[in-house]
């Protein structure tokens, strides 16, 4: 008993020692009109700046490309995928500003935005705007790795790699001799795809060589920026290990779903927890595609790491960013991943991220509230026969933990999901003002046809901010 109390106290102490702030999910973007306007201006200027030396077709291609770039940003804006506020954003922006301010060659009009995507990626269109995926922030293990990523993207921007690729394309692909070759191919009665492959393969491969060269250039310049900032960035080296592991992220320890999801003992879930691994068609032998290596846009992480070490060898920079609270930063990102995957209607993945996070922070309020919300929505979506829209299909290539979780979630019937939602609500303090809990309660009352309680609780929900607001609307319409 004493030992248990002591352990709880230690956990409690460690928890508050680790996390300095309570997690607040990011709100809808606030600077979107500015970004939209800015991108429009970039688009118009890019069109104006197209050299007169290009042919008509080349100009048309470059204009089209500018338009595509503009539309890509608009698409992110429309999807509500851009994050430009909140704790995580502020931290990333502060690093970004530090890099800009310590590198006098960099113009001050650059901006950074986060993108609500679970994949590990960062990019720039060369228009002084850098985008970082939330999934990349989720995977970084220290602040130096993040600095290296930002510097790398700034380097791409400064060296105008995006534009260079397009110009190269316009020059090499859109020209009269190629046009003649294409016409020849289309005049042929057969073999179009093979002939096109033959024509374009050398160019595509050389384009990939160029792309890998650009990556190396950006890596080198990134190190220069880091040196200029006089930062001790030896820890950044581990980013290459992360990149190496991205393609093979697999869990070695199998989760115990019964324990990890705190399933109530009164309900027998044993049937749902059994797991059948594998595809219905069995295993197929995979043929190694040798072109895959040649088609890589980025050099192998191992090569990049070796180059990084060589470039960084003589660095004497020693300053550390001690004020940066990486633990709270990581906690916010991990919570945000749960929130954002849930918002993007991938309930299975959101619960998966939740389990990982819950193991680290077992006493967290935000996390406590989340499961009631997730399972109430799952119960409703299963009843509405929309499960296929919010739960991924099981796949042999997923890591086993995630596949097991999906298998379990698919097996649950709507009533069991609702019972779980109720179970999680019952564990929460009645006075809780959590939006998650209110939403879960509203769905529970709605599905149990308790109009009065539904009305009372649903009034507390800010449906403007919630991606699942349609559920509340649907339930409301059933009571009317």
């Amino acid at each position, binding site marked *: 008993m004493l030992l248990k109390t002591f352990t709880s106290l230690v956990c409690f102490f460690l928890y508050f020692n680790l996390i300095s702030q309570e997690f607040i999910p990011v709100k809808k973007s606030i600077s979107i009109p500015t970004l939209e306007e800015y991108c429009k201006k970039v688009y118009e200027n890019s069109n104006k700046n197209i050299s007169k030396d290009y042919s008509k077709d080349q100009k048309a291609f470059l204009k089209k490309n500018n338009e595509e770039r503009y539309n890509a940003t608009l698409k992110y804006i429309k999807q509500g995928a851009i994050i430009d506020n909140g704790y995580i954003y502020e931290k990333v922006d502060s690093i970004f500003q530090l890099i800009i301010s310590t590198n006098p060659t960099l113009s001050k009009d650059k901006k950074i935005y986060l993108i609500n995507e679970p994949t590990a990626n960062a990019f720039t269109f060369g228009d002084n705007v850098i985008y970082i995926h939330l999934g990349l922030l989720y995977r970084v293990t220290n602040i130096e790795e993040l600095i290296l990523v930002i510097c790398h993207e700034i380097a791409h921007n400064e060296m105008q790699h995006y534009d260079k690729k397009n110009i190269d394309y316009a020059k090499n692909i859109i020209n009269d001799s190629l046009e003649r070759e294409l016409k020849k191919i289309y005049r042929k009665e057969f073999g179009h795809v*093979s002939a096109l*492959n033959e024509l374009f393969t050398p160019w595509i491969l050389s384009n990939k060589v160029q792309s890998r060269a650009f990556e190396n250039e950006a890596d080198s310049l990134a190190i220069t920026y880091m040196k200029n900032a006089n930062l001790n960035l030896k820890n950044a080296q581990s980013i290459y290990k992360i990149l190496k592991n991205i393609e093979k992220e697999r869990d070695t320890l199998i989760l115990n779903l019964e324990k990890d999801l705190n399933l109530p003992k009164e309900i027998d879930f044993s049937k749902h927890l059994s797991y059948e691994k594998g595809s219905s*068609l069995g295993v197929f032998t995979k043929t190694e595609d040798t072109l895959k290596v040649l088609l890589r846009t980025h050099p192998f992480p191992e090569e990049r790491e070796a180059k990084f070490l060589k470039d960084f060898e003589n660095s004497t920079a020693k300053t550390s960013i001690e004020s940066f609270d990486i633990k709270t930063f990581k906690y916010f990102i991990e919570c945000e991943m749960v929130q954002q995957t849930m918002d993007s209607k991938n309930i299975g993945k959101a619960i998966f991220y939740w389990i990982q996070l819950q193991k680290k922070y077992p006493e967290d309020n935000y996390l406590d509230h989340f499961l009631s919300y997730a399972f109430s929505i799952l119960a409703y979506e299963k009843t509405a*026969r929309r499960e*296929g829209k919010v739960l991924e299909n099981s796949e042999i290539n997923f890591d086993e933990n995630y596949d097991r979780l999906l298998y379990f979630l698919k097996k649950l019937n709507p009533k069991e999901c609702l019972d779980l939602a109720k179970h999680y609500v019952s564990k929460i303090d009645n006075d809780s003002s959590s939006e998650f809990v209110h939403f879960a309660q509203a769905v529970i009352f709605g599905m149990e046809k308790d109009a009065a309680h539904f009305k009372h609780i649903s009034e507390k929900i800010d449906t403007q901010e919630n991606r699942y607001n349609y559920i509340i609307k649907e339930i409301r319409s059933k009571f009317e």
Partner: protein
Amino acid sequence: MKKTSLLSLCLFLTLSLNLVSQTTIPNVLNFKSKKQSGEIIENNKIVGYFVFYFKEKTDKNNSAYEIELFDDNYNSVKSFEIVRPKKTLLFEMVYNGEVFLFFFYDKKTGYEYVTYDRDGKQIGSTTIAEDDIPTFDLQRSMTSLSTGTENITFFPMGKEGFIRQSFTKNKKLGYEIIAYDNNMKTLWSYASDEASKFVEGADIGEVTTDVITATISRKKNQMTREMDLGFLILDAKTGEKITEVAMGTDDTGKRSILKTFVEKETSKITLVGEFYAPKDDILKDLSKGLFIQGINFKGDELNYTEYTWKGDISTFKQENLDEEDKKEAGKSFVLFFHDAIRSKDGHLFLVGEQFRKQVSAGAIAGKLVAGALGGSSNASNFEIRVGNMVVMEFDQTNKLVDFDVVNKKKTTVYLQEGMGWYGSAFLGYYINSIGGFDYSFTSRDVANDKFSVVYVDANRREESKSDKSDIMLGVINVEKGKKTTSRLAINSDARSYWIQPAKPGYISIGEYYRKEKKLTFRLEQLAY
């Protein structure tokens, strides 16, 4: 170095992206040509899907095609390229657990049956020249382009080969049953007598590694609707005829076969069908009731029970009838049986749908209007009223234990001029062939003793006051011998959507988003 074209590589990347929660195929400009795709079925269970699509012309006479295989969760597991004559059509794809058999047709070169192993390597092929294809065979094979999951002409025979039912070019049309190994070498062939005075056809019921059963039909000529049936049992290893059991005569009354079950363990075959009064005909007259017959592999009768419509079956009181049904109770419906399910506890469930021929007030009024305007209408004065679903349950001793009417909204099928003069029995087959019934498909998981019969209910409201759903499906579940029924509303935010069979217990919903040019497939459970 593996020959992978760059452009096709790009195509693969865009073809099968398993995105957030459903399989999305972007850049789909239209989805009109769904024909060259279908389900991969193993032991009567959907285990995956395939698509067969054109890539490019390779020379003057040939084109390259891609075959892509997906597992039952729509995950792409294999794709391989094949080169075939340029106007190749894919008639059937059958999987026997070991190899994939593709039945191709080309107007110039005729039939070609090709087998591929799981690595996409061709391991055998057989061709039938265009001139050697009987017209009826081509007609039957072509129906596979428009039908669902059932085998049309090819059946897997264990993991060792395939069986094909075909026609012969006898003086009068005849039938042939041919066995192939996985390399498409003919193992044996059994054909009707060349000198037969009858037009003969075979319809395979079941193929096992021990016996092959088929319903044999005999008619004096093509035009007559009078026919006799026989039940043929062949030795699957040699192709030798074990026996043919006559399915009644004019004097004793004829019998039609709805479904057969071969029980390997007990070497017993169960036949389920309808029986007719002496002198009555199967296609012209209504049956007198149902029968269940047990025979051994030699054809000796083990048991036989008849259940008359008036008497044995009519004694079951219907409590599920709604007001509309009660009003129509006086007008008797006829049953068209879609499927028979045998659960592991030995219970047998027959799934049918009611229908009735009736005078079409709309067609008569339409004719009057058309006549008054100086035109004409080719609608018949009769129409078919399609009624409720019916499930009959027999226990392991073949005792009829339940006759359940599953209520659904009645629908109408209009008949063309002249069709009204055909008898109800024939019209049942006709309505079925044009997809006029609401029955959609039966999802089977024999190993786990789970079956789901899916049909469309035109009553799209969950409750009387609720909004209409986009599609309302009725589901009759039989799990471990217990029957339950449910209705499920399917809604879609896409303009074009459709349902199709999926792995056991699931339905696949296809949705096409025209603006985004994307096609998505998602799986939804039929019952929880």
